């Protein structure tokens, strides 16, 4: 009652109990990793290693290809055996570096610097950049870009996104329970880099123990507030989180920095702490392997480049007939066509839906104009109109219904009683017209 939130949204069953009780464990070291050189939004990296070259753990293997880009590091020590195009989770071919793990786990250089809070904002920002940190909630936007706002954008608050509103996923939840201090440290570093006095950690209230843990960890830290938020999808969308915590609305087509805010995910905050303190690059992340179709749901620390097939095996394999394997959550994740794809910096979960829970033939009916999607849309759009206009090919007209404000959270398609593929129709329309 009375918890902060936004208007609209939906309440899908959260299914978090499947994996919520499993502590984070380090996954088996992969024998081979396929590390894509483009795991982030922005320019792909240029490979700076060659076939046959020995690399160490944490060694840079791909240089950023522009300002909006992020370096890529080796997640194992061993030998580069191939460089070439491999499919990523979305099925696109991406230039990747294949490294055979020699099992020695030799690091490049990892130095503990307990004095990291005395570094200057510039030095800290440089560490975040060098560590190749990107948004780990799924979008994988290079973090350093968010931390370098233009001068005219005055930032006054940093938000840590602990909403984890996607059903099934528990990676951020486990981090908040097990690494609460480190997450708070990450937030402090962010505040220092951006020179702001206020930091907030927003957590959906279906994780009361995480709220308690984070409150405990943040006790006595000046300017940091931990807030329980209403449980409602998509509470973890940047704009919705900012609205819930600060009451500010990011205008259409604008960025959080336009309302003075930078939002970072829980996992990203931890990575920032580890980069600042140990100089550790982003070579591993917590991945929730879960769903009714997996034998033993787990929260694993996984090296970037590990094959999804390896994770499935480590979690006891499939339970029952396998239907869908999804990279990410059920609302916005991608259904994989092959298990031979890599975990990347943005992979928050691997979700297995058993065959009998998937409808094979997704037939859909006409829009009956019931308005459920309009009520569900967190962006205040009319998904019903967008879907009908797109279906009929009236893409230009769809723009008048604010087509490009849709961030494809899927709430509309979730509530649609006619089972219309509204999100897909929106994507189609977006691809047919210029913004």
């Amino acid at each position, binding site marked *: 009652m009375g918890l902060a939130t936004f208007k609209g949204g939906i309440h899908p069953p959260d299914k978090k109990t499947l994996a919520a009780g499993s502590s984070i464990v380090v996954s088996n070291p992969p024998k081979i990793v396929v590390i894509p050189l483009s795991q982030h939004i922005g320019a792909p990296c240029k490979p700076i290693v060659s076939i046959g070259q020995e690399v160490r753990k944490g060694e840079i293997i791909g240089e950023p290809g522009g300002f909006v880009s992020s370096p890529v590091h080796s997640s194992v020590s061993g030998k580069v055996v191939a460089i070439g195009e491999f499919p990523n989770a979305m099925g696109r071919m991406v230039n990747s570096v294949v490294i055979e793990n020699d099992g020695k786990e030799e690091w490049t250089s990892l130095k503990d610097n307990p004095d990291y809070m005395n570094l200057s904002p510039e030095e800290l920002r440089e560490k975040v950049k060098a560590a190749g940190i990107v948004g780990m909630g799924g979008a994988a936007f290079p973090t350093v870009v968010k931390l370098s706002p233009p001068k005219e954008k005055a930032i006054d608050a940093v938000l840590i996104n602990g909403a984890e509103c996607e059903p099934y996923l528990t990676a951020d939840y486990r981090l908040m329970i097990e690494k609460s201090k480190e997450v708070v440290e990450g937030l402090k570093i962010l505040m220092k880099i951006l020179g702001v006095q206020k930091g907030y950690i927003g957590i959906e209230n279906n994780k009361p123990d995480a709220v308690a843990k984070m409150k405990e960890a943040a006790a006595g830290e000046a300017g940091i507030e931990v807030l329980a938020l209403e449980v409602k999808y998509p509470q973890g969308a940047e704009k919705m989180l900012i609205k819930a915590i600060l009451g500010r609305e990011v205008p259409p087509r604008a960025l959080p920095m336009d309302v003075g805010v930078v939002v970072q995910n829980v996992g990203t905050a931890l990575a920032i702490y580890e980069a600042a303190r140990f100089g550790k690059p982003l070579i591993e992340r917590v991945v929730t392997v879960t769903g009714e179709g997996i034998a033993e749901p787990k929260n694993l620390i996984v090296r970037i480049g590990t094959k999804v097939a390896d994770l499935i095996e480590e979690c006891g394999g499939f339970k029952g007939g396998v239907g869908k394997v999804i990279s990410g959550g059920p609302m916005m994740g991608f259904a994989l066509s092959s298990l031979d794809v890599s975990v990347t910096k943005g992979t928050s979960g691997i979700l297995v839906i058993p065959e009998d829970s998937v409808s094979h033939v997704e037939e859909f009916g006409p829009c009956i104009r019931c308005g459920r999607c309009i*009520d569900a849309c967190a962006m205040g759009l009319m998904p019903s109109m967008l879907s009908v206009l797109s279906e009929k090919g009236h893409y230009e007209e769809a723009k008048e219904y604010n087509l490009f404000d849709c961030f494809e959270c899927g709430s509309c398609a979730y509530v649609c*009683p006619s089972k219309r593929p509204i999100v897909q129709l929106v994507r189609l329309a977006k691809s047919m017209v210029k913004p």
Partner: protein
Amino acid sequence: MEATKKEHQLIVSVSPHVKTDETTSRIMWSVSLALLPAALAGVYFFGLRALFITALCIVSSAVFEQLYFRMVGKKSAVGDGSAFLTGLLLGMNMPASLWSFSPFTVHVPVIASFVAVVITKQLFGGLGFNVFNPALIGRAFALISWPKAMTIWSEPTAAFLAMDAKTTATPLGILKEEGVVKLLEVFGDKMSLYMHLLTGNRAGSIGETSAIAILIGGLFLLYRGYITWHIPVSFLGTAAVIAWVFGGKGALFTGDPIVHLISGGMMLGAWFMATDYVTSPSVRKGQIIFGIGCGFLTMLIRLKGGYPEGVMFAILIMNCFAPIIDRGVKSKVFGAVKQNTAKENK
């Protein structure tokens, strides 16, 4: 088979990968269920004839829809329940006296069903594309084509099997023709009038008689989230205010809003006809405008028009405006300063 499964034949489809188990057909059947109390009240008061008429409309609607699908070679969607619902609503909007073989009027519900399902719905593109409420067009067609047969109102009878009954005027008919004094005279006193209207013990269409039975169904829909308050409340609220202000004889503010709310087709219209998804606005704010329009037009016809009852025409007229209302109000885009960002997009 097992071996190929081991090769991971993965199902790939677009996000979201989870969906609500709510379906269009479940909505249609739920609305039909919500109409049951009112339909049963109709059968209770008007006897077996009411059941025959309602069943005839349902069967005709389903058969005509099935025939249409077969004729145009489309996959049958009769199972979605929308033809059943249209037939049920149509039947509930007809007088029980239509079940008469001399003069023969049994064809009226059949033809009205054809007009509702085939002409009003399917020829406009099928479910989701019809401009007008199919059941109401069916009824309007019947009323205009067979004005006499459609306005023979039987007295509520206790004889369940009786195939005819004394005819009488509806409460609204009396109110229109002879005024409120006569109406009170017929029913005894005010309390007795209210009770007759609430329980349904009065002349009228089969399904519109019992205000309480309709309200039970309406509240069920509200509770289950199948409708929201916007249309019924704005519809009934507007009608009540107008009835109170202008409904009296002579002086303003002397009308009786309660009589107007619970007589005629007001309750059935506000809860079940105006709330039809397809033919009403889908933006909540637009639904309020729509409801106000329905209430206003209903009372305009009742107080100033030639017909004693105006619900049907009011809703049909507002049906025309539903798409325009949706276009006009739109929903407020998150973060937008102005309500309509269409111009900025160009």
